[in-house]
């Protein structure tokens, strides 16, 4: 009887039967997860809830949305717009170039090691970030950078316009270093999942290459591409360490949070810092839920 109640209707019965000796005490089986769940609650969920408890606290300690509102207005709102702008830009660049690179890597057949090299390197570069990445681009595209000098040699003054490593264009360039390889890793399985038979079927039905991409290729890839875009957006939006080295000002949301946490603010103001963090968690949560849903959809074609 207990089995029937603890199993949701549907496939539950079949699973229970197939693994009968192991699942006869279902409710007790969940106890095995307790240490893991307790650890997560203590060191991840409690800090996250604490952020919200501070963010939703008014000037006199009462519950209220004043700080959340303040975190979304004035300079803070500017920071959100700036962060969202460059994160969306970085995600768009990473998505397009990453997909292109993955397509090239997937179509390479001749030097056989080349494809493996691209995937292996992507695995490394997608995890690159933090201080070393910022240092690398400072020495390439900083005011005294090697690349800046090289460009000067061919008559291009990188700093003639409003370029700066801490500005939108600069951050997009720097973040592309991990965004492009991350997109390669996300999209490559999907591109491999495009079956040659589909292309053949398309052409034997009278379609040409563009018909194939419009009607088959892109629709199949769409969930992966969109999912990748969201992942890259979230990745760029939450990055702290690299940005902290590229710019001193706190017009980027993560740096602004760090500034408020640094404690150089008056007593009532620290709640704004927590409210910024709370908004960031909300945005990240929405992004990750969308990514998760899209990934599920994309996996249908990857067998």
């Amino acid at each position, binding site marked *: 009887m207990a089995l029937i109640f603890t199993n949701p209707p549907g496939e539950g019965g079949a699973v229970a039967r197939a693994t009968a000796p192991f699942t006869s005490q279902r409710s007790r089986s969940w106890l095995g997860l307790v240490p893991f769940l307790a*650890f997560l609650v203590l060191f991840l969920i409690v800090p996250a809830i604490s952020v919200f408890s501070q963010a939703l606290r008014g000037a006199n300690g009462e519950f209220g949305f004043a700080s959340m509102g303040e975190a979304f207005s004035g300079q803070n709102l500017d920071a959100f717009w700036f962060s969202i702008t460059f994160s969306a830009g970085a995600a768009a660049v990473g998505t397009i170039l990453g997909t292109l690179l993955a397509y090239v890597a997937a179509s390479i057949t001749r030097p056989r090691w080349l494809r493996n090299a691209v995937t292996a390197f992507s695995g490394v570069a997608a995890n690159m970030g933090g201080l070393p990445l910022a240092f690398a681009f400072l020495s390439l595209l900083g005011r005294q950078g090697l690349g800046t000098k090289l460009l000067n040699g061919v008559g291009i003054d990188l700093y003639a316009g409003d370029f700066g490593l801490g500005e939108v264009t600069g951050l997009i360039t720097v973040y592309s270093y991990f965004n492009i390889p991350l997109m390669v890793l996300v999209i490559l399985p999907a591109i491999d999942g495009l079956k040659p038979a589909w292309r053949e079927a398309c052409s034997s039905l009278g379609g040409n290459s563009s018909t194939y991409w419009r009607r088959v290729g892109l629709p199949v890839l769409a969930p992966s591409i969109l999912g990748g875009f969201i992942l890259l957006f979230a990745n760029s939006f939450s990055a702290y360490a690299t940005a902290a080295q590229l710019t001193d000002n706190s017009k980027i949301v993560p740096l602004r949070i760090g500034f408020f946490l640094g404690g150089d603010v008056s007593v009532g103001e620290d709640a704004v810092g*927590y409210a910024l963090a709370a908004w960031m968690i909300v945005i990240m949560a929405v992004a990750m839920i969308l990514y998760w849903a899209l990934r599920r959809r994309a996996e249908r074609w990857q067998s």
Partner: protein
Amino acid sequence: MRGRVFGRVVAPLILLVAAAFFILPLFAMMRFALQNVQVIDLRWSNLFDKWSLAPLWSAFSDDQFGRALTLSLKLAFGTGLISLLLLVPTIVWVHLRLPRARSTVEFLTILPYVIPAIGMVAGIMVIKPHARWFLNSDLSLIPFYVVLALPFTFRSIDSGLKALDLRTLVEASRSLGYGWIRTIVHVIVPNLRTAILSCLFLTVAVVLGEYTIADVLLKRTFPAFMGEYRGSDPKGGYGLAILSLVVTTLIFMIIGLVSRPKSARRRRARGTI
């Protein structure tokens, strides 16, 4: 025809541009740190002059360096150990008894993406006044690093277990009289050597790369030292960054090497290649 143009011209061109984009920043950093020539004076003729590791040696001799590196190594050791103690039993349990909970557990392990390091450290700052006895210690970073590493460590252990016939192993071990703990220590762990190794290496990479939490909590880990040291000696700071990059890259390469041949062999044995 168009396909051939793509393969012969466009594809190599794209790869070349990509290679330049990914290699040039690293080269520029190496040159800045290790070549004692100002950018303004740099010509093609002196590109290979005056390279030296001296900035790195002077960074090593800073008296804060040893302390920062020791702390980061301790953190890496603790993070790796606790990750394994937490994950191996949990994932074994999930595979054996709660296969339907697998996707839920996997979802939980990507929560550190939802609550990024800067969000997490904001929460830690809230708790700090109530838990000074714990958070004042530098080693209190360990559990938070375990959480940050979860998306990586979970995947490495999980895929290692997927490749095993876990049920048969456990049934054999249990029917021969081993209890749960001895089964895990003497039967499962030896079969998971590769996955455990990747898990440990990944935690080292995470600990060596984590800056946000250490920076806000003012803990003097290796990355925090690197950022601070750059202020007084840019060349040395960049040299340390190169060093940490080399170590991290080696780690990912080793993981790639130890985890690939085995699965390839198995695939061949199954006849799918």
